[in-house]
């Protein structure tokens, strides 16, 4: 009895001693020195009044990383951080992300990006990232769909490098059609499946009688008419 209370006392001592120790139980134990550097980096970009990195800060970060700020890698970084609000990074999120990447300086962060990209593009992760990208763009609380214009941009960022043709055609279609003003999560996920399962531009495997979202049925029909 006495021993345990002594032990627990020790623990509570350590908890109050430093906030950074909260992270000690995480998978990759950052030393307190690393954490300091991470925090220091955060402060370089954060808005001092809100204690968040805001869009301006992100832009600066991007230019320092020599990555365009509409680049997919920033989105991947946000994913790694599990950032909730588009355009902002909280300190917690920052710490989470950079700790996971083992990057406590700007150069290390820069070097970590290709590795991050590889990690995200692994099939087991990509679907999660893809869904995350959609959710990241939802700004209102009850919002479930994203307007066409934003979707087009998002498609370009997320899928542009891997499925250029599909993205270009789909974006063109979305812009000229009138049936849909917004795209929901189900349709968004459908597009990823489409890119992975259907050959393009032949699309011979596509069967509109299956459960593809209707917007893709119309898209395929539109392409077939164009090709005829």
């Amino acid at each position, binding site marked *: 009895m006495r021993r345990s209370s002594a032990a627990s006392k020790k623990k509570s001592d350590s908890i109050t001693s430093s906030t950074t120790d909260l992270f000690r139980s995480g998978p990759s134990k950052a030393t307190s020195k690393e954490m300091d550097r991470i925090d220091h980096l955060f402060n370089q970009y954060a808005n001092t009044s809100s204690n968040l990195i805001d869009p301006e800060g992100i832009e600066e970060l991007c230019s320092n990383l020599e990555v365009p700020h509409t680049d997919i890698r920033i989105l991947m970084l946000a994913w790694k951080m599990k950032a909730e609000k588009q355009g902002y990074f909280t300190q917690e999120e920052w710490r989470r992300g950079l700790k996971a990447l083992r990057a406590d300086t700007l150069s290390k962060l820069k070097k970590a990006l290709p590795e991050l990209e590889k990690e995200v593009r692994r099939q087991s992760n990509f679907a999660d990232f893809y869904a995350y990208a959609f959710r990241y763009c939802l700004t209102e609380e009850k919002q479930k769909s994203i307007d066409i214009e934003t979707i087009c941009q998002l498609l370009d960022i997320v899928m542009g490098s891997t499925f250029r043709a599909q993205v270009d055609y789909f974006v063109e279609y979305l812009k000229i059609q009138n049936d849909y003003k917004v795209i929901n999560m189900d*349709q968004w996920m459908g597009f990823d499946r489409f890119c992975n399962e259907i050959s393009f531009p032949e699309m011979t495997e596509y069967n509109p009688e299956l*459960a593809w979202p209707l917007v893709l049925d119309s898209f395929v029909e539109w392409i077939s008419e164009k090709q005829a």
Partner: protein
Amino acid sequence: MSFSQNREPITIEDGFKLIDAAVTKLTRIIEGKPEPPFLPEEYIGNYTIVYNMCIQKPPHDSSGPLYEKYGAILQAYDKLTILPSIMEKHDEYMLREVSRWWEINKIMVRWLSHFFYYLDRYYIARNGIPSLTVVGMTCFRDHVYEKVHFNVKQVVIALIHKEREGQQIDRALLKNVLDLFVQNGMGNMERYEKDFEDFFLTETNSYYSRKASSWIQEDSCPEYMIKAEESLKKEKERVSHYLHSDTEPKLVANVQTNLLVSVAKQLLEKENSGCSALLRDDKTDDLSRMYRLYHAIPQGLEPVAVAFRLHVTAEGNSLIKQAEDAATSGIVEEQVLVRKIIDLHDKYMAYVTDCFQNHTLFHKSLKEAFEIFCNKKVAGSSSAEMLATFCDNVFKKAANDKSNDDSTIESTIDNVVKLLDYISDKDLFAEFYRKKLARRLLFGKFSDDHERSILTKLKGQFGGQFTSQMEGMGTDMQLGKDQQTGFEEYLKNANTGKPKGVDFTVTVLTTGFWPSYKTSDLNLPLEMVNCIESFKAYYEIKTKHRRLMWIYSLGNCNLTARFDAKPIELIVSTYQAAVLCAFNHTERLTYQELIDQLNLSHEDLVRVLHSLSCAKYKFLKKDPASKTISKTDSFEFNSKFTDKMRRIKVPLPPVDDRKKVVEDVDKDRRYAIDASLVRIMKSRKVLPHQQLVSECVEQLSRMFKPDIKMIKKRIEDLITRDYLERDTENPNTFKYVA
């Protein structure tokens, strides 16, 4: 008697000699040569020789040798006497020889068996060897039958061919000969089948195949069928005359295949005489024959049913096209078209029940055919709408003209219900029907009996849900009468009397039952306002918690217009009355003033003004006097108007609400699809996409044929609303979200 004990044993040599003598005598007798018959003593004597030789004590017991002798006698007879005689002859003569010697052989075997009978009793039984009869038959089979059957078969088949070509042949002879084949099978049909039947069927096959080829070229369909029927009849007779009954099914199938099955398409599709032509020209006998012939063949009726369906579809399609062509300025003549379709149905249903014996295959074909063309649009009108309009016209006419006898109306109603069954958009029909029914009920153009009759029949066929709203409308009308009486009582008692001396009738409609109508904020003339108020007061007393919504667009009004010449009673709609009453206080009003005063929509006001100033009767003078209403016109009461009639009805043409009906139905369909999808998923929990869609279509098929795209859209909507979700493992499957 034991006389044998004292005798000397008979040697084989001696015994055989005696037997041979007896056999010689026997053969002479049975071959018909002059020879005195056996005396009883001789008969017994022969038997006794054998008997003694058998019971002799060894070494003289001669059962074995006697058995051999028996076989040898018959063998010799077969080989040396029977076979040569047969081989000498040819053709029919050979058959006769065969038949003759077969009979002789039977007698020979029988007599000889009697002589050697003792062997049967002990020696044969004890040793388990073939009986005397069997030995006799086997002998004939091996030494005669096996040698001659091929030639015999050739002759038989040649004779049959002769008979087929119309010549007379000796049927009894053939029967005997074929019976021989059967008997030589010795217990099974193998010899008959392999040595005769197989060849016969092959020959039959090529015979009828040739006939079919030539007939199909030369003959018309009815002629061909008669020949086919005749052939089948003859072949069946052939069986009863001389073939074994086992052959019948094989023979019939053979003939049918050649004459009917392999040429089916050519036959049925023959130009000018095939199935289509026969249907067109009412050739019931030929059609019945066709049914008879093809019914006997397994799955044989299918091509006929297909030909039937194609013909009916073509007829229906041409009616549709005729109506389309005749529809000048986009107006369809429904009465004509629907009547024609009804007649078409009666005509071809008669064929199904009579010629085609009510067979389900033909009922199905008729249904499929009607479902194809009954769902086509004519000049933009759907069949659902056309049928509703048809009913409307029939009922309106019947209500006006009481002389129409009820039975024609009843049969028309039956036909309408039948046709509705073929229309896939039944809900669209219901909606159009409801709208027209409302007008009929409210403007008094209906006969209670007829309306009730059709509703009962529709309910019986399509369920209570289909007719519940319409029935409600009828009930409202009934209650309305009581309501009006109550209202008039109230007016009397309340001492208010008729408001401003105006007679006033109100019909209260229950919202759910009747089609939805737009309300308008029409500013009524004062006289009417008072009426409205007094009814409102009455109604408040009668029922609490009910809100009245006034639909002035459905009302009508009797006005007396005091023209210079004479007053004339005008029967007009409420809107028209309101416009006319506006001129009670001012001689002249502009369009704008009227709009401001009455608060009607432009669309409505234009219609009303047109009917009062540009149509047949010009109660208002329009300035400028053009044919159309424009917003800058002004109007004046035409006091100079007169007509020989004392009473004029001024119709206000109803607005074309086809678009609205279609929209309303589409909206209801969306809800129906949602409800159906949720219902299905709730009970199944997990379901693949295609199954969900097909179950949904099935559930809704009683009312309409849902568009697959619409279903997909509703599914997506339900996903967004969190009723369903896609299975993460299998994106083609959905799960119910509780």
